[in-house]
């Protein structure tokens, strides 16, 4: 395997470059996935049947907290990649753990939010609106959950294998994924919650 030392570690082999490009293409597909969910949500947002509307059930505090947690985690994973490029394995590790903890915090708030919704009579089966809302949020939440497990695997490999081109490549791709989830959340935050409460 040819290693090109003029490039950052995560790009150093041809396979690594392909992995990164392939993942970008996958993110293109993810954009369409969420666009479709958003289309469904916007179509169904006023079709609440006998159930509550968005303005009835959304609460600003947990939503703002969730946003802060996710934005910060996006920042820390950026720092992790920066540390990785400096070759500072220890700092990278710390930032990675921090990112996952923030992600976990986000997820627990979201779980709380879901329980709350069900509790106040806005369950999955209540109306077309709640189905679209919970599916959109749930898909994002499932992505975050998957990301946390994925991140754990990477931390493990960082510990056992060190900062090899392969591990660096995986970490970089993970960071792309995590930033992307942040972008999706921004749109959920703006066009689901804030628009709904406006």
């Amino acid at each position, binding site marked *: 395997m040819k290693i090109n030392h003029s490039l950052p570690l995560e790009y150093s082999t041809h396979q690594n470059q392909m992995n990164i490009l392939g993942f970008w293409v996958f993110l293109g597909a993810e954009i369409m996935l969420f666009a479709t969910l958003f289309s469904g949500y916007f179509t169904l947002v006023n079709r609440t049947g006998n159930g509550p509307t968005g303005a009835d059930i959304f609460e600003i505090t947990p939503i703002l907290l969730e946003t802060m947690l996710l934005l910060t985690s996006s920042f820390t994973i950026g720092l992790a990649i920066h540390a990785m490029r400096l070759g500072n394995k220890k700092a990278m590790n710390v930032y990675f753990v921090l990112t996952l903890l923030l992600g976990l915090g986000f997820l627990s708030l979201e779980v709380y939010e879901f329980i709350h919704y069900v509790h106040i009579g806005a369950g999955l089966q209540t109306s*077309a609106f709640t189905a679209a809302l919970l599916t959109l949020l749930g898909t994002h939440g499932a992505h975050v959950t998957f990301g946390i497990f994925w991140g754990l695997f990477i931390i493990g490999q960082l510990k056992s294998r060190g900062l090899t081109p392969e591990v660096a490549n995986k970490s970089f791709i993970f960071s792309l994924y995590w930033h992307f989830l942040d972008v999706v959340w921004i749109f959920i935050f703006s066009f689901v919650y804030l628009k709904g409460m406006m």
Partner: protein
Amino acid sequence: MEFFERFAIPHPSPAIYASMVAIGLTVIAIVAGLTYFKKWGYLWREWLTTVDHKHIGIMYLISALLMLFRGGADAIMIRAQLAVPDNKLLDAQHYNEVFTTHGTVMIIFMAMPFIMAFMNYIVPLQIGARDVAFPRLNALSFWLFFMGAMLINISFVIGGSPDAGWTSYFPLANNEFSESVGTNYYMFALQISGLGTLMTGINMITTILKMRAPGMTLMKMPIFTWSALVTNIIIVFAFPVLTVALIMGTMDRLFATNFFTSTNGGIDMLWANFFWIWGHPEVYILVLPAFGIYSEIISTFSGRNLYGYKSMVGSMLIISFLSFLVWTHHFFTMGQGALTNSIFSITTMAIAVPTGVKIFNWLFTLWRGKIVITTAMLYSLLFIPIFTIGGVTGVMLGMSAADYQYHNTMFLVAHFHMVIIPGVVFGMLAGLHYYWPKMFGFILDEKIGKWTAWIISMSTLLAFMPMFFSGLDGQARRMYTYSESTGFGIWNMISFIGAIGLAIGFVLIVYNIYYSTRYASRDISSDPWDARSLEWATHSPVPEYNFAIVPHVTSTDALWDSKYNNHVLFPGKYEKIHMPNNSGIPFILSCIFFAWGFSFVFGMWIPAIITTIGIFICLGHRSLEKDYGRYISVKEIEETETKLRGV
């Protein structure tokens, strides 16, 4: 016993019991045969665990041919039922099941693997690569597709076939109107194979962007590779829409949500909307690779370069974008206002333009070419007029005001068969004849091939032209029978004769494969058609590393240049070659996906959870695995090359 009752067929008939027995016997025969001839190890090593794009391509090809016969059997049943008025061959429920599986199987499990077969086999060869970018993902794509296909194919013997049409419109497809688990099968089979297709899309795009031979810029790629690139771009952006639509539909059926219901705010039209946002690009996903194959064949057998290469590429890129802008023309009659329908009418007219450009490019390529009529060329030449009939009637359907007259009649059915059969099926058959020597090292018999081409094309006209007339006369699609007084009888009888002709044609193709396998000469060159692009520059059949030396390219017709213009295609000497290792994980993971889908179809939650965990274990295993591939030594390459040259 109660547990097993759910697997019973809700609507049995002797034909289904006979199929059950036949499936059982076939499985026993395959298992017994493999054991008797001690082929299990061979099967596992060479096929089930392979990551070689060529083997995967051949598996796609075999699946496509098998599914062609499954879908074809359905087609014959449809036409037989409609051949005479008031026929009692099938009842309404069976007829629904048969036309549903006919459409689903033909589009998703016949046409898709057919194009995948050629993209997998040919694209890496055309760009001078050793394999695709992610060989193991490629194997996973295939096996996911395969398991999806198996899922839909066991539906009619376990639990019941889907019966809501291949479009599976809600509210018809909800639990109230489709009580059997058939529609669940539809949802999960499409979901699983759709995942595989999406992965292929990502894989092929990366392959084409990053693995081209030195000197091959984007505008020097062979046209089939261009068509594959554009197709895969459409795949990547269209399939997620289907994924979401299927998730919503599944949730409506299994978890009683209200996306597509008529209560609590649900809106059934949203399904149609999502389905066609995926469905219309899907049409172009199928037809563009076929266009690519036609371009290769027409240019090869006209003995000249493709006319208007740049406009070909440009029109494909325009099609890739416009294909996402026309979906509403599938439901003009759903009640949107004149403005919405007009917008989509105009985009629909617009997309006919780049397609027209391509037709003229082929005609100009033929102009003053040294035309050689082979079977592949014959299919390509027959395609142009027949496809034009389909295309022009499509423009008729695209006018929203007029569409109210044609919608849901046999006119529509005639239109899309006239597009898809010449556009896709002829293209794939042409590709089959054209690339067969590359894949297997001998040429399919030309005489049988040409007879078949004529039989298939004339039968296509015979089978589908009458539907234009009966459709304009008011015969609705998806009706299991009609009365004698309607006067549709004669048209449908002609169609039935055409359908039999098509069946004969497809049987002849299989006979041709059998005949040529036995009798055709193996003594052919690696370039039997005097072709132009890189896939013909290596041996037939292709060694596992494709090219002993990476080719250098300076134009779209690299091989032609090396044959006639003193271009040095393979500079340098042998070097060791890096190849990926085989892996059983894709196959095992896909088997788990099959069990996962099956559990969900029947709402068996404990196995569903276990298989979900199984899927994640496989993913985790992949993450932790260290697999850096292997090298083929220079000595090995030399030996293989000497042997293949027959020195």
